[in-house]
């Protein structure tokens, strides 16, 4: 839930009773109406969601984004014959406002063409880390102003979807390096891209190998185990963690199957339905990112990753990359904490 800027009411019992309309039942105070007020406020303000897609070219990132949000967020980025693959990693973002049932979502998608495509891919993750830190920096700058805006525009990356190529073997050295570095700065959701090249058995074997690799390299992908707050969360997230990474297929063309119109890929031997759980796990990814955990992603970004960044910035600002408008915030007297080692969980 968005943080409330209201003073707490003195009588905060009776959370669990059903919600009557306010002023109808004299025995209750009517606190439940707060939920309605929240909803109305949220509808007015709208939501922001920033997602970043990382992976080698051709793994279906643009198609996946289009499929997720059921709109042509990105025109399928198939470069024409004259356009060469970019020599260095570039980042570009596209923003759209999508509306559903009166609720507006400002969606920003950041793409990373050129990632992992060169012969020498050393340090190809650095521009990405730089971009993420830059967004944190921008937010920080806004936050420390004396007269702040009422609603700080949030360009921080809430979720990074990492596309693993479906080799069927295990994670590659590039994947390991990238995931290790990025899981400490942002929520990373790895997915097995173009999963229509793996049979069900190959998929399961690949998934368990990836999970083993992630464990042995101490890579904590979203949903992170250490941020589970209560037993309900734990159960829900454990179910998700068993299936990570999801094997997904993206498609933005519709075909007719058994009289229904479905999104899918048509081949000579069958039609792969994107929303069919028996075919691929796209519904799981969609549910995770949008239907159930969108707010959680934003919360973890705000409460944990951003706070970590802020702590390091305030203590040792000379160590971080200097983006535009960089200001030396280090108070002279504060000694350095354990921030030099890496990111810490800041509660």
């Amino acid at each position: 839930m968005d943080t409330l800027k209201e003073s707490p009411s003195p009588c905060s019992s009776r959370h669990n009773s059903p919600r009557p309309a306010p002023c109808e039942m004299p025995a209750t105070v009517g606190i439940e109406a707060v939920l309605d007020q929240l909803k109305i406020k949220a509808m007015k303000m709208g939501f922001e969601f920033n997602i970043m897609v990382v992976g080698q070219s051709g793994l279906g990132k643009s198609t996946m984004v289009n499929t997720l949000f059921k709109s042509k967020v990105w025109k399928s980025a198939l470069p024409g014959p004259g356009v060469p693959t970019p020599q260095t990693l570039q980042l570009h973002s596209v923003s759209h406002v999508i509306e559903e049932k009166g609720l507006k979502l400002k969606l920003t998608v950041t793409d990373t063409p050129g990632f992992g495509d060169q012969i020498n891919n050393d340090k190809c993750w650095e521009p990405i880390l730089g971009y993420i830190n830059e967004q944190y920096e921008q937010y920080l700058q806004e936050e420390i102003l004396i007269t702040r805006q009422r609603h700080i525009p949030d360009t921080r990356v809430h979720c990074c979807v990492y596309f693993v190529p479906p080799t069927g073997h295990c994670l590659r050295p590039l994947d390991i390096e990238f995931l290790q570095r990025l899981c400490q700065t942002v929520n990373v959701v790895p997915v097995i891209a173009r999963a229509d090249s793996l049979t069900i058995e190959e998929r399961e074997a690949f998934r368990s190998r990836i999970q083993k690799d992630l464990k042995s390299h101490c890579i904590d992908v979203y949903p992170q185990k250490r941020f589970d707050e209560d037993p309900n969360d734990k159960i829900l997230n454990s179910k998700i963690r068993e299936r990570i990474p999801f094997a997904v297929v993206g498609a933005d063309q519709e075909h007719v199957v058994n009289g229904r119109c479905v999104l899918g890929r048509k081949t000579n031997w069958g039609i792969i339905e994107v929303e069919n759980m028996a075919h691929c796990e796209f519904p799981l990814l969609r549910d995770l990112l949008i239907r159930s955990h969108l707010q959680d992603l934003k919360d973890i970004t705000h409460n944990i990753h951003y706070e970590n960044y802020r702590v390091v910035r305030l203590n040792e600002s000379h160590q971080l990359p200097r983006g535009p408008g960089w200001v030396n915030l280090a108070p002279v007297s504060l000694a350095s904490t354990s921030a030099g080692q890496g990111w810490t969980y800041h509660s």
Partner: protein
Amino acid sequence: MSKQQPAQFINPETPGYVGFANLPNQVHRKSVKKGFEFTLMVVGESGLGKSTLINSLFLTDLYPERIIPGAAEKIERTVQIEASTVEIEERGVKLRLTVVDTPGYGDAINCRDCFKTIISYIDEQFERYLHDESGLNRRHIIDNRVHCCFYFISPFGHGLKPLDVAFMKAIHNKVNIVPVIAKADTLTLKERERLKKRILDEIEEHNIKIYHLPDAESDEDEDFKEQTRLLKASIPFSVVGSNQLIEAKGKKVRGRLYPWGVVEVENPEHNDFLKLRTMLITHMQDLQEVTQDLHYENFRSERLKRGGRKVENEDMNKDQILLEKEAELRRMQEMIARMQAQMQMQMQAGDGDSGALGHHV
């Protein structure tokens, strides 16, 4: 007039008949006795289905106890060369097939040195053959030269990657390259056509010399001409490999079973596996010939021009040569000093035998 039946031994008593029309049969019999040798190299990133395809092509299991290494091992590994030989016999004809695999190619984060190992392996085989050919006993030369290289292109990209281009340019003068699009069941037909065209354009753009099928001779029959035309139009071949038998439409076929259908390996509407196999079998002889006549001869003339000195690094500069010469001089001088010392000792010891001054050379 006797009827021409090409494969039979014609009656030598027919007037005007010399009999050398049977030469092809003799050659045929001799080759069948000798057997054929073929070396095939497969190069491509891990996970593109190279091993599966080789097993499917030759209906064998070249990698019976294969353990796929975990991510930690992959980080440390460099490119290795693994050659496995298998003898296949079909209707009395023996084929000694060597498959050279290159695990570790394209795995590392920095792939700049990926292909040095591979190129030096190819050169080494040429070198060995040259050495054997120039030797005294030439009866049993084993031909381990790489006759053909299947280069696996990932179907997930939008064409050739920079690594693909760099590698093909480095070996197109040494070996016949046959580009293959792997895991073709992940592409729809339209995507496949688009990718093939894109790859051909890029190959032309970068002046990469891939193996071109020879045109059918004008006296071949129409079927063969048509087949050759079809093969040529399908390059690069997009293939799917599998050795699992799946039940489809009442019969057992080799294929891959998905929840949405079955991909049949030997169905020409599903992929180009049959075309690749036909090409390989029909043109095995031609591949060997081109290796011998073009690539090997290139190597040989380069090598002999450089002289007898074995140069590993092509751009050895003068300083290095000078240093080497100096080192050799020093060694010679040391040897001479030692010999002189020995002679001194002998003179002192054998003063009695004054005539026994031997020259040790």
